[in-house]
């Protein structure tokens, strides 16, 4: 994680293709295991919110972190996915969990 990413200002835009960091740190994180390492497209910028990783440890979680709703194709996420090729899953991901 670069320090540049720990700010309240969004550095990605709607439509950007982004990848979720593949990491398994200790502590509490809100990024589901199954989506780590997968690529999707920014569907919207949800705003900025106190960092849950810090809130879970009795700290204030500031500065707030930009939160994105990222759209992934189901067929990319689940091996052998049997649904429609156009099915998507949208997950809200904090900026510091995203790499370009």
């Amino acid at each position, binding site marked *: 994680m670069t320090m540049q990413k720990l700010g309240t200002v969004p550095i990605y835009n709607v439509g950007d293709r982004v990848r979720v960091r593949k990491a398994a740190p200790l*502590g*509490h994180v809100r990024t*589901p*295991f*199954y989506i780590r390492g997968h690529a999707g497209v920014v569907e919207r910028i949800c705003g900025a919110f106190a960092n*849950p*990783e810090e*809130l*879970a*440890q*009795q700290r204030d979680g500031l500065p707030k972190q930009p939160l994105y709703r990222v759209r992934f194709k189901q067929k990319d996420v689940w091996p052998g996915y049997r649904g429609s090729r156009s099915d998507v899953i949208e997950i809200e991901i904090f900026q510091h969990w995203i790499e370009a």
Partner: protein
Amino acid sequence: MGGLPAGKVRRAEHAYDDWELRVDAMMMLLVGVVGGNKRMTVDELRKNIESLPPADYDKMGYYDRWVISLTQTMIQRGVITTDELAKKLAAVEKRGLSPISRRRSKSAR
């Protein structure tokens, strides 16, 4: 569930036990949704639920996890001590009531 196979989802609504409603109410008070006296965050609740041993987690119902986790959080924050909790649990047990429901919860898992 969480990306792992979890069997069929039961979609029917179900009734809650009184103790489950009380745990829910307690959580609303502790995070300040009601009353405005904030003593913990929902993120601490999640962290302590995730810290449960997997075998215990699987056996517990939804509100079993909540009550264990929010109690753990109150100890971590110094609102109550482990010793106070132990004494209270012993007192409740003496009254002939199980401090925590031992039967399978009807709650969603």
